[in-house]
C-alpha cells in the first residue's frame, strides 16, 4: 500500500477511535500492521534526528521538559505526548502530525519509550541521542530482575549514534557509561548532600550511601526548595523558579538540561534554556491539579517504590485529605510486594481518608503495619471518589494512584468537572 493511502487509512481509524473515546494506541496498531516501515520512513529524514528517553521513573515529564526546552531554542519538535510509550503509540502520534502525503514537518523527534519496547524501536530506528534516567525495581513481573531491565537500557545506548546522557547517581546506569566512548557520553548528577533524597535502587535499604566522584557531570542539581532550584553548569550556579512540583521532577530537570546541551552543543542559548525550564508544568497525572467543588485535587501517579517514596516526600500531607488507589492490572503490575518497599510513616499524623482500587485491602494492610489510620476502604473506584469528595468538602485533596486507577479516576472526574483531555 502506498504511503499516502496508509496515512489516510490511519488518520481515519484515529478519528473513528476518537469518536468512540477509544485508546490512543489503536490507530497506531492498525498502521503498523499495514506498513511496518511506517515509523522509520517518516522519521528518517528529520534534520536533527531522533531522541529516545527511557528509564523507570519520570519519562513522561522529562520528555515534556525536553520538548519545551527545544521549542524554546526555536526547534519544531515531534513527540509522543499521549504517554503511550509503546511503538504503536509513536505511530498513533505520528498520524496526528503528518500531512496527507505522509510528511512530518519537524526538526527533531523526542520520544518517550518503555524499556522493553525501546529495544525493538532502536533496532529499526537508531536514535541520534538518548537519555537514560534511572533503573528501579518496577514491573518485575514483566522484567524479572532489575539487571535484566538494565541490559535493555544498555541496548538503547549501544544503538545510539551520537551522544548518550546518563544518570551519574544510579550505579547501574553509570556502569553502562563505562562501556561507551568517553566522548559519546555526558552525565547529569546531584550535589553530594542531595544523594539521600534520591536514593538509587541499590540504596533503597542501605544504611549509608557510597559516593563515587570519578565521573564529572555536565549538569548538577545543587539545591532545591518548593518552587525553585539551582543547577551547577560549567562551574557556574544557575538558579531559577520552577512550576514543576515533585522533587523527582526537579532532578529530572537536570537530566533534561544535560540532554538539550548534548543535542545542541555550542549552539545552545543558556538564558533561553533556563527561561523555558521555569515555565514547564507537570505532565498529566504527574502532580497535575484539578478543581473540584472549589477545592484543588491533585493526581499523583505512583507505580513503583521509589516513585511512591519521592511522591510522599514531595507533598506535605497536612491540611490535605489523602486518598490512595491501587490496581493490579497488567499495566500496574500484578505483584503487590512493591508496597512493602515504601515507607508510609509520613502519613501517620494526618491519616488517610479513603483507600480504593482492586487491591485496596492490600494497601490498607500495608498502612496498618505503618500505624497509619484509615477512614474508609472502598475497592470500587467510582463509589470511593464520590465518598472522598463528599467526606471532606472543605479540604484540598490529593490522590496517589496506579496507572489504570488514574485512568478510571480521570474518567469519573470528567463527569463532575472539566478534566484536561488526553490528546
Amino acid at each position, binding site marked *: 500500500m502506498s504511503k499516502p493511502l496508509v496515512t489516510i487509512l490511519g488518520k481515519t481509524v484515529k478519528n473513528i477511535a476518537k469518536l468512540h473515546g477509544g485508546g490512543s494506541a489503536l490507530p497506531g496498531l492498525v498502521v503498523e500492521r499495514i506498513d511496518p516501515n511506517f515509523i522509520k520512513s517518516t522519521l528518517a529524514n528529520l534534520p536533527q534526528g531522533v531522541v529516545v528517553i527511557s528509564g523507570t521513573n519520570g519519562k513522561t515529564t522529562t520528555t515534556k521538559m525536553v520538548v519545551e526546552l527545544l521549542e524554546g531554542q526555536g526547534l519544531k519538535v515531534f513527540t509522543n505526548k499521549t504517554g503511550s510509550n509503546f511503538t504503536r503509540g509513536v505511530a498513533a502520534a505520528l498520524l496526528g502530525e503528518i500531512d496527507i502525503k505522509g510528511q512530518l514537518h519537524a526538526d527533531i523527534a523526542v520520544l518517550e519509550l518503555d524499556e522493553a519496547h525501546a529495544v525493538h524501536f532502536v533496532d529499526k530506528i537508531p536514535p541520534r541521542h538518548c537519555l537514560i534516567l534511572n533503573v528501579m525495581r518496577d514491573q518485575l*513481573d514483566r522484567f524479572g530482575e532489575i539487571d535484566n531491565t538494565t541490559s535493555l537500557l544498555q541496548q538503547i545506548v549501544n544503538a545510539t549514534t551520537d551522544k548518550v546522557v546518563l544518570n551519574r547517581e544510579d550505579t547501574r546506569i553509570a556502569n553502562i557509561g563505562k562501556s561507551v566512548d568517553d566522548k559519546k557520553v555526558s552525565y547529569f548528577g546531584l550535589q553530594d548532600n542531595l544523594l539521600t533524597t534520591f536514593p538509587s535502587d541499590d540504596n533503597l535499604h542501605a544504611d549509608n550511601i557510597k559516593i563515587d566522584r570519578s565521573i564529572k557531570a555536565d549538569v548538577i542539581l545543587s539545591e532545591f526548595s518548593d518552587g525553585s532550584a539551582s543547577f551547577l553548569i560549567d562551574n557556574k550556579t544557575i538558579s531559577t523558579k520552577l512550576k514543576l512540583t515533585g522533587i523527582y521532577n526537579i532532578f529530572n530537570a537536570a537530566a533534561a538540561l544535560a540532554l538539550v546541551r548534548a543535542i545542541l552543543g555550542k549552539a545552545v542559548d543558556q538564558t533561553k534554556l533556563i527561561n523555558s525550564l521555569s515555565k514547564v508544568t507537570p505532565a498529566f497525572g504527574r502532580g497535575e491539579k484539578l478543581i473540584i467543588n472549589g477545592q484543588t485535587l491533585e493526581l499523583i501517579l505512583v507505580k513503583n517504590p521509589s516513585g511512591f517514596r519521592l511522591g510522599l516526600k514531595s507533598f506535605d500531607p497536612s491540611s490535605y485529605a489523602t486518598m490512595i488507589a491501587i490496581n493490579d492490572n497488567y499495566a500496574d503490575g500484578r505483584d503487590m*510486594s512493591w508496597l512493602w518497599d515504601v515507607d508510609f510513616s509520613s502519613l501517620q499524623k494526618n491519616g488517610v481518608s479513603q483507600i480504593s482500587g482492586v487491591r485496596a485491602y492490600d494497601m490498607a*494492610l500495608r498502612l496498618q503495619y505503618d500505624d497509619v489510620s484509615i477512614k474508609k476502604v472502598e475497592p470500587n473506584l467510582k463509589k470511593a471518589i464520590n465518598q472522598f469528595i463528599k467526606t471532606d468538602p472543605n479540604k484540598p485533596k490529593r490522590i496517589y494512584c496506579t496507572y489504570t486507577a488514574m485512568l478510571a479516576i480521570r474518567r469519573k472526574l470528567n463527569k463532575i468537572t472539566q478534566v484536561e483531555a488526553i490528546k
Partner: protein
Amino acid sequence: MKDKIITILHLYSNDMNIYGDYGNVLTLKRRLEWYGYCPEVINYNQGDKFPDKVDIIVGGGGQDSGQNKIQADLLLIGPKLKKLADNNTPMLVICGLYQLFGNFFKTADGQIIKGIGLFNIETFAKSERLIGNIITHSEDFGDIIGYENHSGQTFLGHNVAALGRVRLGAGNNTLNISEGARYKNVIGSYLHGSLLPKNPMIADFLIEKAVINKFGRFDKKIIDDKYVEFARKTAAKRPR
C-alpha cells in the same frame, strides 16, 4: 520491657531484598509489639560480625548479582546458621536465600553455586521464568497466598517436607506440586507479596517459636486482622 526483647536478624538486608522482603521483617516487628514484646532488628550484611544471640532470622530474595555478592559470606556463617536451626531457632528464607539454604544452585551454563545445605534441596536454573499469583495449602497454616517470580526450579531431597501443596501457580518447580521446604522451625519459600503480612499464621508461628525458646511460654493476644482477611480474599480471586 527489657526482659521481653526478641532479636530479629535480617540477613543481607542490602543485597537480598528485591521483592518487598522488608515487609516480612516489618510484620514480625509489629506483631511482636502488638503481642507486648520488644523487638529489636539487626541488619546483617557481608563482613559484619555475626551477633551472639538472635531469636528469629529472616532473609529475602536477590538478583543474580546480589546472590554472587553474598555467597562467600553465607558459606562462612553457614555452620552457625545450621547450629541455630538445630537448636530450633525459627527462620524464614525467601526465593534467593531459600535456594542458597539448599545444597546448590546450578546455573544455566552448568556452574555450581554452593549453598549451605541446611535444606536437603537442589535448584537448577531454567529458561522459563515462573511468575504470577500463587496459592498453596499447608496442613499447619491453611491456604498460603502470595506471588512468585523465579527462574530457578527447586527439587526436595528424600524426607524433606514441603511448606505447601500448590493449588494455583508453579511453586518449587514445574514437575510436581510442592512449594517451599521445612526443616525444624526453618521455613523456605518462593512466595513474596510480601509473604508474612498476607499470611499472619506463618508470622505467628515464627514468633511463637522464638518467644517459647526464649521465655518458655507465649501468651497470645487477639490482633485486629480484618484487613488481611479481605486482602487474602481479593488476592485469591486475581488471575495468575
